[in-house]
């Protein structure tokens, strides 16, 4: 670790297995941060576009442990694991809290047959029933001991026993070693298949993949801060890029201004600043009565794609081509700005060297 810092090298840990492993590799590839693993059996790798970074493959839980004690500088892991193991995040800084994959919820679920229970208030009452009538505690199976305990107490459930269990938690009530569970659920299918339902106010956390850093490394080692900023910049630009398409349509008109005006008349196709219009030097030369051919290029929000195409068509656009936008770089990366605020670094010191 000391040797690494002397070399100004930065360690980035990625999930070695589980639900986040493949999606993380795909995500980084989509950010042009392809991870080069010379040998798939090895636990190290490199990212050619970030030469200062050593990639380590670890289990998502180990990533958090090692981030907390400073053995690694940066890591991609699940928000659920971060909150479970890093407590109130004293040693960690969540650099980017939603990489928009690996989404799931940490929920409180009870047997569907408990038709008297729909909310946490019911669990309060039921836990008292257990204590008074059955002389034992309500048993809750979970892998997320800390969050489960905290959430239950917060909702006024104080008499319960947590059963720590690592796999097939959703089967615990049927198998009889717990009365209810706290577990992750992506779609709810597994819960339903096991005869469980999520309580109305039983959502503990909306989780997804996130980028996390050791707070001290970020504050004290410029190379770590610099790497975090670079990652943020490219991640923000990529995620932002996914919101947009670039549309190019060929339109006949009398002047570039007239075409620009027609295109921008609809806010959906007015682009980030406005359309770009360029003449086309068509093979069939000569100007007809409709004017000459121009190509108009705009950026539009992906949810408005079809409306944008329709508008271009309505003003005579033909041969509309659509290209996904890889990146949108804003004047400053919003994530980077947030990081500056988080670290409380004066703006000047936070500038890139």
């Amino acid at each position, binding site marked *: 670790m000391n040797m690494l810092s002397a070399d100004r090298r930065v360690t980035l840990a990625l999930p070695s297995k589980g639900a986040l492993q493949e999606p993380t590799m795909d995500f980084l590839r989509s950010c042009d941060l392809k991870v080069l693993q010379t040998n798939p059996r090895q636990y190290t790798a490199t990212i050619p576009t970030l030469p200062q970074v050593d990639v380590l493959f670890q289990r998502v839980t180990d990533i958090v442990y090692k981030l907390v004690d400073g053995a690694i500088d940066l890591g991609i892991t699940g928000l659920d694991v971060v909150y479970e193991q890093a407590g109130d995040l004293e040693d960690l800084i969540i650099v980017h809290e939603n990489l928009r994959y690996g989404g799931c919820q940490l929920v409180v679920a009870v047997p569907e047959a408990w038709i008297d229970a729909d909310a946490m208030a019911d669990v309060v009452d039921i836990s008292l029933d257990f204590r008074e009538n059955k002389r034992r505690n309500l048993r809750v199976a979970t892998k997320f001991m800390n969050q489960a*305990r905290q959430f239950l107490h917060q909702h006024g459930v104080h008499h319960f026993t947590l059963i720590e269990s690592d796999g097939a938690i959703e089967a615990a009530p049927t198998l009889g070693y717990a*009365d209810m569970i706290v577990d992750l659920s992506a779609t709810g299918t597994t819960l339903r298949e096991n005869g469980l339902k999520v309580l109305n106010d039983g959502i503990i956390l909306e989780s997804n993949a996130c980028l996390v850093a050791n707070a001290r490394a970020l504050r004290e080692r410029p190379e770590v801060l610099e790497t975090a900023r670079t990652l943020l910049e490219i991640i923000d630009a990529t995620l932002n890029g996914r919101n947009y398409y670039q549309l190019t349509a060929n339109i006949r008109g009398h002047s570039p201004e007239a075409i620009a005006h027609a295109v921008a008349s609809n806010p959906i196709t007015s682009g980030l600043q406005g359309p770009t219009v360029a003449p086309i030097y068509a093979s069939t030369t000569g100007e007809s009565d409709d004017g000459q051919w121009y190509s108009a290029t705009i950026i539009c929000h992906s949810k408005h794609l079809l409306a944008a195409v329709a508008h271009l068509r309505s003003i005579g656009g033909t041969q509309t081509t659509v290209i996904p936008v890889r990146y949108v770089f804003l004047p400053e990366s919003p994530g980077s700005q947030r990081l500056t605020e988080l670290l409380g670094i004066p703006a000047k010191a936070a500038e890139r060297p």
Partner: protein
Amino acid sequence: MPAPLRPPGVYDRTPAEAAEAAAVSSVLIAAMSRYGYQSVETPVIEYADLFLTKSGDEAINRLFTFEMYGRQLCLRSEFTASAARLYVERFQHEPKPLRWQFAGPVFRYESPGKGHSRQFTMLGTELIGATGAAADAETVGLAADGLSALGIRETTIYMGHLGLLNRALDHFDLDRRTKRFLLSQVENLRRPERGRAYVEKRFEQMVALSANAESLVAERAMLGENEASAEDIAHALELLLRSANLGTTGSGRTNEDVAQRLLTKSRRANQQVTIHRALDFLHSVVGIEGAPQAVFHELDALFPMDAAMRSLLDEWRETVTLLTEGYGLDAARFVLQPGLARGVNYYTGFVFEIHSGGEQLCGGGRYDDFIRVVGAAQDTPAVGFMYGLERVLDEARRAGFRAAPNAPQVLVVPIDSADSIYAVQVAARLRTACAVELYPPPTRNPTQAYTYAARRGITQIVVIGERERTAQTITVRDARSGAQTMLTLEALLASWKEPRP
């Protein structure tokens, strides 16, 4: 190696701070001792279950817990639970009352960033096995007395009475849990941003039935004469579970359990009118605040009085009279707040807090059920309170309390290593009379030692060199004037016995 880190929320005390804390503690401890309270020490680590018994206390979700070989342990977050455990374990058959005092660190996992400490120091008393106004007044009187011994006299004493609230709610014919729920909501009623609407919503959530459950109860009720029986509902539930393919209730709860609870819940929902009346009542109680006589007057008018309530109210009145007439506390310092509802699941009688400079310095009250809940064979009434030392420290400082400096009076300075043994012997003799520090290592240049003495606030320096060693004398140097005299050890000790100018 990076600099070692201090975990967030815990703090060191430097020598000056530690001296100040010790001085303030000893004043408070002395005050408690003057009332006959004996020091008791309980472990910092307890089973978490013990603290969870104080159910509903907001400190519970801030408990520092950890697991060792399957047992859930915790760092104590207060003393009463440990006091009750110790009592149940070893003192149930001792003559009562027991007067115990506690002092030491307690731990709460406060979230960081709010400037909250996670370790702080509590001092206070538990008076076990004593009922009545005399015991209550003694607790408040002692708490105020300790503070005034530190010069903190401009305090306000807030008092409430959970026994009265509890008893008054009995007039509303509520089931036990609904009553408990209402009591736990008194704090929310007092908070302007929550208030009555918030509490009503909480209640609705508590009794809400899903469409499935609602129809189940309603259908059964139609069949029966008045109300469905638990068996009826359990039977219908069985059919429903089978037809809807909802699986089973699991091993923990039977269909009858679920059915029974559905019934209870729907009955509770039918209590709406009663609940609203009870809420109206609590709302008006929460609004009352003021000087004792005025508040007692209002309570007389407001409460549906029965014999039990009248005697509670009389006892409270007597407590206040004892405090003003007996303990000599100015009546103007008392503010009665019948809605003061600290620790509703735990206190059963009067509760109080003493505030100064906008800070709560201590708090406590009567808890007659708790020791029984922890495991005592008999009802064991008790009353207690705790100071928060860190807050008291700040107030004591503001009130002008200064800890006496604890520097030693004498610094013994050997000149050469050959003088070391004699220096140690001299220091040992001098220590029979005062605090002595030995200056290490022997130094040929005593000026450094003089500078050190000045910084430490040491007034006398004893220099030991070859001359002194051979003559079996010492040289005494006045740290301020620099005047030196050579004399024998006995002469110096004798000079201290004479009255100083």
